């Protein structure tokens, strides 16, 4: 098959297309209630966001606690475009994503020189500063009272398929980023920045590319979320809680893998749905506990656990391992001081 690049495995492609096809007909076939369908939509959104976070946190090993900056920016730019020039929403999403990507580059390009924990700390500062400025900037975000978006009838259920589309594209992009030549370069950078630079990989360029892609995707996710919610508020969109939900989904699911963050997002949405009503604060605590357990016992999260169990029962050959590593775990030589 000459149509595909050599790194695309056909079974993986078929599996993805089949999964998307099943999900596409699911609401009609099963006659899902609006409530369940919306849960699916939300899950698609968070799968996409968690995977986009994972390009930075998993593939590059640069754990960002500041992705809410792009999520919020994408959401508010798209919200403003829907309100005033009445752009069609796919266009507004793309513009939101592009501006989010540009913002990501502005703060990310200088901070990505930092490695490991230092980058993570800087991103906390970026995220929180952005939240404060955006909450203050009332002309743009509506301040703490937020922004109400025009409600289009029928849009919410239509968003199911849009969400599926976004998620499908992000899964495919994750696969490409993992398997292509660019992906190999990212793995090299994660293992050892200096050695990668020595063999002719430009860490700066690669990191900026991933940052742009990740920022764009998370921006689109924020824009999607704005359309889905009809109401957005800077304290929530730019909040630290939004940033850490991406981290939690990816790390608990299995950082650096494709299935892991997706699985983490599914669990996150379900757990939140059940807990948020009765214990609005508790669900993050439970995620904190899960995070501790994962880091201590199974750095590859749910995916690592799956492979461990599968090996135990002889379902996969012993040498088969989840092919990824936690940020930092494999990068033993990543210098403390950049």
């Amino acid at each position, binding site marked *: 098959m000459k149509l595909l690049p050599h790194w695309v495995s056909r079974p993986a492609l078929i599996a993805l297309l089949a999964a998307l096809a099943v999900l596409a007909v699911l609401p009609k076939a099963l006659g899902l209630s609006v409530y369940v369908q919306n849960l699916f939509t939300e899950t698609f959104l968070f799968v996409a966001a968690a995977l986009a976070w994972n390009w930075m946190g998993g593939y590059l090993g640069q*754990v960002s606690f500041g992705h809410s900056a792009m999520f919020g920016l994408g959401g508010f730019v798209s919200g403003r475009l829907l309100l005033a020039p009445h752009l069609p929403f796919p266009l507004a999403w793309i513009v939101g994503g592009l501006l989010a990507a540009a913002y990501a580059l502005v703060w990310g390009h200088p901070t990505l020189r930092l490695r490991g924990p230092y980058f993570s700390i800087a991103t*906390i*500062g970026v995220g929180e500063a952005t939240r404060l400025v955006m909450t203050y900037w009332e002309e743009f975000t509506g301040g703490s009272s937020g922004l109400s978006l025009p409600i289009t009838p029928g849009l919410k259920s239509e968003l199911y398929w849009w969400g599926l589309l976004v998620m499908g594209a992000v899964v495919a992009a994750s696969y490409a980023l993992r398997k292509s030549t660019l992906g190999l370069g990212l793995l090299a950078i994660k293992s050892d920045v200096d050695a990668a630079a020595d063999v002719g990989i430009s860490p700066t360029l690669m990191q900026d590319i991933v940052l742009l892609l990740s920022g764009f995707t998370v921006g689109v996710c924020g824009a999607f979320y704005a359309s889905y919610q009809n109401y957005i508020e800077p304290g929530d969109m730019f909040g630290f809680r939004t940033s850490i939900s991406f981290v939690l989904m990816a790390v608990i699911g299995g950082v650096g893998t494709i299935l892991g963050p997706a699985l983490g997002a599914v669990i996150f949405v379900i757990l939140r749905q059940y807990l948020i009503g009765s214990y609005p*604060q508790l669900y993050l605590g439970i995620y904190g506990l899960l995070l501790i357990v994962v880091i201590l016992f199974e750095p590859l999260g749910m995916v690592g656990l799956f492979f461990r169990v599968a090996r135990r029962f002889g379902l996969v050959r012993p040498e088969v391992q989840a092919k990824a590593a936690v940020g930092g775990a494999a990068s033993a030589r990543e210098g403390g001081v950049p």
Partner: protein
Amino acid sequence: MQGFSITDLVVASVLLAGLYATMAYGLGLIYGVLRVVNLNHGGVIMAGAYVGLVMHEKLGVDPYLSIPVVLVVSFALGIAIYVGLVRHLPRGAAGGVQSLLLLFGVWLVLQNAAYLLFTGNDQTIRTEYSTRSIPAFGLFLSVNRLVVFVIAVLTMVVLHLFLTRTFTGKAIRAVAQNPDSCTLVGIDVERIYSLTFGIGTALAGLAGVLGASLFSFNPTYGSGDLLKSFVIVVLGGLGSVMGTAAAALILALVEVFAILVLPAYLTGAVGFVLLVLVLVLRPGGLFGQRVLG
């Protein structure tokens, strides 16, 4: 300028710097000795504030008199976190992100425990001298802020003496320099690690109860302080008491004087922006090269 004089602002900065130095020193000490970024620092600051609140409301103990209790509780908490969790991770660069995420998990758990126990409402510790101030040098100084400053300065002096004059303190500094050589000369490195983690955490708890007597707090209290501590540690270099104090003063001055040019709501962002700038502009001198002492 709503009736502020420059002297007022400078004095306010100096008083604030004492608190900042205390909280930053704990973070710097743990990083310097264990090479672990204690992302749970903010969680312990919050916990310290709530211990002070419980002591005050349930037992009627003055917040300043509850300091020994807070120190013991947060020291024990630190030892428990080290022995139970941090000890099992690879240390140094390899475990950098892992221990960061792990301690972040601990922070989330602490924060949500506080939500369950105390709800998310803002709390304050009010004493009869909360609003009292005394005239000095032609200014009116808040009693609370003065007391906090004095306690902070005493803490720094005691720490400095501990690290430079006692055997254990010298052992801590030796481990910071080279843990492998320490095992050779008979220092129990593992014990020093847990002790250091305990002391660093106790300092966070102290900063929490001191902060609680000045500001209102809720379960998210401490996240801002965590970032401010990073700014100070990055600016001031590692483990040097003077460097930490100077950096704390710089941060306090920048924050306080930002009131003159920025709307009050945005002054909180100054610390965050400063953090990113310092990290980006001084990456080489990050956390300083100086060893404790």
